[in-house]
């Protein structure tokens, strides 16, 4: 029993509700939000690994006092090891995911508080609510609990888009919500089928039932459940056929909102992807499907990024394209590739947030996001330009920075898994990614300034620069010492094989 585990979900929810009480009191809201945002990444650092059972209902096998009075038909069967309560599991991989999510949330919230004029309102509320549900999705070991927070996070994402005053946000929000309202009941149907076959919603118990033969693993119902859960996963992560709407969502949010939204997609991809691998790994094509859809995601979204003229859309598509690397890592199914995929997930969440907030400074200075109308920003803010360039280099996988390490590990693991073709595709696409980034970078920063462009005369807030520098430091640390992250991820990857 560990009381700190549920606090990771409860604190952001409580903070979101408290912020609503102080509506229109901007200073108070700012102070509370920043304090809670600092607490968020620090809770997981002090939490011990273990399980948390809500209501205290541990499995009977761990609770002999309760088991005494029960009939043999319960204590002698599999019911003895089943988890009766909603269970949260906190391990080393969850720890590093929570810390990274907390840091990204802290920096996104800090940036949003300093860039928006009125910090009080629904925006901060939605950000905290999103972080809470994301934490729950990472921690939960209960597939129905996952569905509930899946719905909450979908509504939260829509809310973040609606709350940012960007042209066309309402239309995109409604579109995303309609697609989401098809995808989430289908995910629920998948959960229901799993429940119907195994009589359980706890993931550990479902795996136990399938492994020990309580349930026929070749049952066609399980196959259908696998398909439906994969459909929900594709929607939540923004893999094809949902890559267009996902990148549109990023481009319709404010930059700090988008930085948080992409972190949500990355971590949802990892959390639900791991569940799919854990439960359905015995279907041989499940892994092949994950790899296939990831390759399609990479190719489609990176080529679509090449054709865009709005820099927010470009980064949106690049962010979706990078998800493909994680999917390949998870789908290859060896310990090394899963570690590499999870490491890539951490790197990508950091780098894409870095890119979104970095490019957000242009929006702050010019209120313009069409790269055809931009130019010559380098002269205006040379320091920020350098930071943005470094973020692009990090995304492309240039040596001292973090994505280099994870992409190298991915390519090595694809070679050792006997599919060198994937390695070649990954190298080619990372070159194209860099090219796309450089095209946008050149157009925005280095080209002579068009005469029509008006630059607003206000300095970039210190908080934004601070966030960018923190992201850069994280990139460099993870790039030089990748074992900091991989040593945390290794146990999870080994347990999956």
């Amino acid at each position: 029993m560990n009381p700190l585990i549920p606090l990771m979900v409860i604190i952001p929810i409580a903070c979101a509700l408290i912020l609503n009480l102080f509506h229109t009191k901007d200073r108070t809201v700012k102070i509370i939000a920043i304090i809670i945002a600092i607490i968020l990444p620090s809770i997981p650092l002090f939490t011990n690994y273990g399980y948390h059972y809500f209501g205290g209902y541990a499995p009977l096998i761990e609770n002999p006092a309760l088991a005494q009075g029960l009939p043999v038909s319960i204590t002698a069967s599999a019911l003895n090891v089943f988890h009766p309560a909603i269970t949260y599991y906190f391990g080393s991989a969850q720890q590093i995911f929570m810390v990274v999510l907390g840091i990204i949330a802290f920096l996104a919230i800090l940036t949003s508080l300093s860039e928006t004029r009125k910090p009080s309102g629904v925006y901060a509320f939605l950000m905290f609510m999103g972080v809470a549900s994301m934490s729950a999705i990472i921690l939960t070991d209960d597939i129905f609990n996952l569905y509930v927070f899946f719905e909450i996070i979908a509504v939260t994402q829509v809310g973040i888009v609606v709350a940012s005053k960007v042209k066309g946000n309402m239309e995109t929000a409604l579109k995303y919500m309609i697609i989401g309202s098809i995808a989430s009941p289908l995910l629920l149907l998948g959960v229901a089928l799993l429940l119907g076959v195994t009589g359980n919603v706890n993931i550990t118990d479902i795996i136990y039932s399938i492994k020990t033969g309580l349930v026929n693993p070749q049952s066609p119902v399980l196959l259908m459940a696998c398909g439906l859960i994969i459909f929900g996963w594709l929607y939540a992560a923004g893999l094809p056929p949902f890559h267009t709407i996902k990148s549109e969502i990023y481009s319709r949010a404010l930059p700090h909102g988008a930085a948080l939204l992409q972190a949500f997609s990355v971590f949802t991809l990892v959390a639900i992807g791991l569940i799919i691998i854990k439960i359905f790994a015995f279907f041989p094509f499940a892994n092949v499907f994950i790899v296939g859809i990831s390759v399609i995601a990479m190719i489609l979204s990176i080529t679509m990024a090449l054709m865009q003229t709005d820099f927010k859309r470009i980064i949106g598509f690049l962010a979706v394209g990078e998800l493909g690397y994680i999917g390949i890592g998870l789908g290859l199914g060896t310990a090394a590739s899963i570690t590499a995929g999870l490491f890539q997930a951490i790197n990508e969440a950091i780098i894409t947030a870095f890119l979104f907030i970095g490019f957000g400074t242009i929006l702050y200075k010019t209120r313009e996001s069409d790269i055809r109308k931009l130019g010559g920003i380098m002269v205006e803010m040379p320091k920020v330009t350098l930071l943005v360039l470094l973020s692009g280099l990090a995304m492309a996988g240039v040596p001292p920075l973090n994505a280099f390490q994870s992409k190298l590990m991915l390519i090595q693991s694809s070679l050792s898994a006997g599919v060198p073709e994937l390695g070649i595709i990954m190298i080619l696409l990372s070159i194209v990614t860099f090219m796309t980034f450089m095209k946008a970078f050149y157009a925005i920063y280095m080209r002579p300034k068009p005469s029509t462009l008006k630059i607003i005369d206000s300095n970039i807030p210190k908080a934004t620069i601070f966030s960018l520098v923190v992201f850069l430091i994280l990139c460099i640390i993870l790039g030089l010492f990748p074992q900091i992250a991989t040593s945390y991820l290794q146990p999870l990857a080994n347990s999956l094989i």
Partner: protein
Amino acid sequence: MIIDPQLGSFFTAGALIIIGLFAALFIDNLIKKVIGLLFIADGVNLFIVTMGYKAGGIVYVFLPGMTVDWFAQNASYPLPFALVLTSIVIGASTLAVMLSLIIILYKKHGSIKASKILGEKGNQTQSKTPGDKI
């Protein structure tokens, strides 16, 4: 009767999901689209409740005088019902959010046709000249 009530209920759920999917994908009116989404959610809820049903069973209330074994063999399975309660409420609240978005968009566009509201914006963002020189 020819078919088992549980099976019939499964078929009803399936029919509702299919009607809902049809409406959500092919009807142009946004309000009817949202009604289609409601039917999908209803169908899934009905499906889950049907799973917990036990033919000839009793409601899952443990009354004095029952033994655990007898109860376990005769009561319906309550876990799916608990899930459905949550799911009904979630469905109603997402519905409310969608309807309010539709009202806002109606004020902006003067129409509730999906092809007009959701299609137009797609054209707006896609650039006319893909290989734009920069």
